[in-house]
């Protein structure tokens, strides 16, 4: 199918996968026990807004859903736009599972309304004890996670990222191709 699509010049965007996003909930325990990583009560989901009336409507509906859900789970949320024109929904909640389920809600909401292709990633924030922030990024197109440990001056702590991978490999679906561990600098989360 992929070859035929290319042959006829169809650009098909891959579907987003949300199934494995809940794996981070269970992994959270291991983060804390084995890696000294504490969840920072913050998570974000990022998507590329589309300039169309359908999208505007879908977005409004998803926002409404989110508002209801957040009231229910006592989650704070805010919507921002970054320097590259992508939209971020930033969630704040001391209960990690509520963060995950609300991220899931937004992504499923967009997918159900046919805008799943617009999803870029979800991002969960952690802090190393006495250290810097560390992120686990969920890639919707591949349905898996990768670690991102930024340092100052847009450098990344690759050694630590590799360590995170080796510890978590069994519990968390992790992106095998390191070339796809795209950094996300200056995130609003």
């Amino acid at each position: 199918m992929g070859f035929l699509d290319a042959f006829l010049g169809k650009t098909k965007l891959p579907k987003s996968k949300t199934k494995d996003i809940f794996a981070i909930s269970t992994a959270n325990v291991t983060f804390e026990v084995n890696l000294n990583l504490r969840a920072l009560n913050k998570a974000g989901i990022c998507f590329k807004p589309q300039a169309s009336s359908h999208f505007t409507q879908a977005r409004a509906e998803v926002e409404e859903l989110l508002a209801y859900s957040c009231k229910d789970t006592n989650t704070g949320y805010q919507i921002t736009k970054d320097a590259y024109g992508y939209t971020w929904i930033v969630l704040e909640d001391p209960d990690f599972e509520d963060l995950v389920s609300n991220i899931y809600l937004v992504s499923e909401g967009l997918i159900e309304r046919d805008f799943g292709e617009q999803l870029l990633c979800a991002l969960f924030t952690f802090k190393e004890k006495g250290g810097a922030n560390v992120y686990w990024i969920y890639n919707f197109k591949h349905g898996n996670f990768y670690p991102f440990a930024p340092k100052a001056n847009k450098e990344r702590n690759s050694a630590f990222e590799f360590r995170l991978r080796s510890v978590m490999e069994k519990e968390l679906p992790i992106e095998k191709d390191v070339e796809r561990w795209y950094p996300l600098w200056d995130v609003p989360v």
Partner: protein
Amino acid sequence: MKQWYRDTGLQARMFLTMFLLAAVYLAFISFLATTGVGTMGIVVVAGIFIFIQYFYSDKLVLWSMGGKIVSESEEPELHTIISRLCQIADLPKPRIAVVENNVPNAFATGRSKKNAVVAVTTGLMHQLNHGELEAVIAHELSHVKNRDMLVITIASFISTIAFFLARNLMFFGMMGRGRRDSGGIMAVWIVSILVWLVSFLLIRALSRYREFSADRGSAAITGQPAQLASALMKISGTMKRVPTDDLRKVEGMNAFFIIPAVSGSSLMKLFSTHPQIEQRIAKLEEMQQKMEF
């Protein structure tokens, strides 16, 4: 609604073109096989030539355009734009090059997704705003995703051989065999020229269809066909027609404005690799409308 970036007609035309091309090539090959003229030498030389060109396409194109691969620290913004688009389109990140040139342009090259290079000129980066630049890059990424380099190389493979034959056959034939086969050589020579001419036109058509496809791909990736339309207008200079001066200021002058005549006869259209900007913009506007309603 979801299929707004599909165009079945375009795909049908593309398929027909490729089919015709294959038919012409097959006929040519069987013709070569039946004539007793020794063409093997030229075919092999042309084959090697095309293979090298294909294999080193990334380096050759970069070298001829004067492109320089830029690292993430040199062009952080460009890198971020591209890696995010790659994430959305699920493509491996290509190498990124910048060409020092004021003419706004962009191109993609490389024999596979893994070997791809996407290059932009400095003029493109200066003239386009963020969304437009993103749309142009998404267009180039679509070329990579659709494997256009491979498609066009395969499509022009036998055409190039026909071209080699047409150019060199007389010379080689006279040298090698004397006058005995000159009738056969003459026939191969004429057929080669014909095949080359016909396939040339078909390849041009195919190439234009691939451009339209890449425009659609760009719209699919960015979700904003209007951005690419606007970028195309700026690049082609059409944007100059859209005034930025306040209406009250220019009202008195309006009568003197001249709309540049649209040039290009249908013969010119046959020969160009890129479709007319007006046509591409019209298609993009159509897509934007389909998205909205």
